[in-house]
């Protein structure tokens, strides 16, 4: 069975997660072999997900760690005062 581009788009997420049923996967793969548009959409989506998931996208503000641990320290001492 031949499927059209729009049908392939519905399966991009499942394709990337490897959750397509065997017959769907085969249809999508066959389509990708001859459709440069769907191949480019798939490649760009995969690429974009790698970039957006990178932990460098959002930087920690300067001094974040120091402020966090100082506040934690106060809390830890308050809840469980050191016996020593």
């Amino acid at each position, binding site marked *: 069975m031949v499927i059209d581009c*729009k049908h392939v*788009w*519905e399966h*991009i*997420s*499942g394709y*990337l*997660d490897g*959750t397509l049923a065997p017959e769907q996967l085969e249809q999508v793969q066959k389509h990708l072999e001859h459709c*440069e*548009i769907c*191949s*480019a*959409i798939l*490649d*760009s*989506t995969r*690429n*974009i*997900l*790698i*970039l*957006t*998931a*990178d*932990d*460098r*996208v*959002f930087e*920690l*503000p300067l001094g*974040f*760690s120091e*402020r*966090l*641990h100082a*506040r*934690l*320290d106060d*809390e*830890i001492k308050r*809840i*469980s005062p050191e016996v020593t």
Partner: protein
Amino acid sequence: MIASILSGNTQEFHSLIRPYERSVFSMALSLLQNEADAEDAAQDAFLKAFRNLKAFRAESKFSTWLISITLNEARSRLRKKKTMKVQSIEEQQEEHNHASPALLRDWREIPSEALERQEVKLILQQAITDLPLIYREIFLLRDVEELSVNESAETLGISVASVKVRLHRARMMLQKKLAPQLKQTSPKRRWLPWL
């Protein structure tokens, strides 16, 4: 380490959370869209984790537990800030919005080193924070924090089927917005006939 903290070595909590500072802050910032609020929410999430450490169950991952505390912290702050109206518009979008991708003839791989460029970083930040909340949440849990589909469904209190639908739309929205923008930022290929 958690058992040790619970038995009284409370100072070890500092080391326990160090590896998660960045992801908790990123999550809070993506959801709250404001750096000061995000820092505040991240601090509160870590404090809550400390206070409720006894409730942590070893069968789940600590990171997953921490992320769900962060999500709840951000959600309650959003509820205080936003009216219910905004939320319901987003819910409606789920019904009607058929996500279609940006059409391209070819795609040249953008390497992760591109993230060294402030310009690229800003484009990505904007695209993430512009996603409607229900799509941003699932994208963050699944694609950034790498929770499983089941863990995401449980954390968000939605069905596995909804997770899949929302995630697909979130990814398509990101592709639609980012593919054309990122294509433009990649340095023009120089013509090197000897290569």
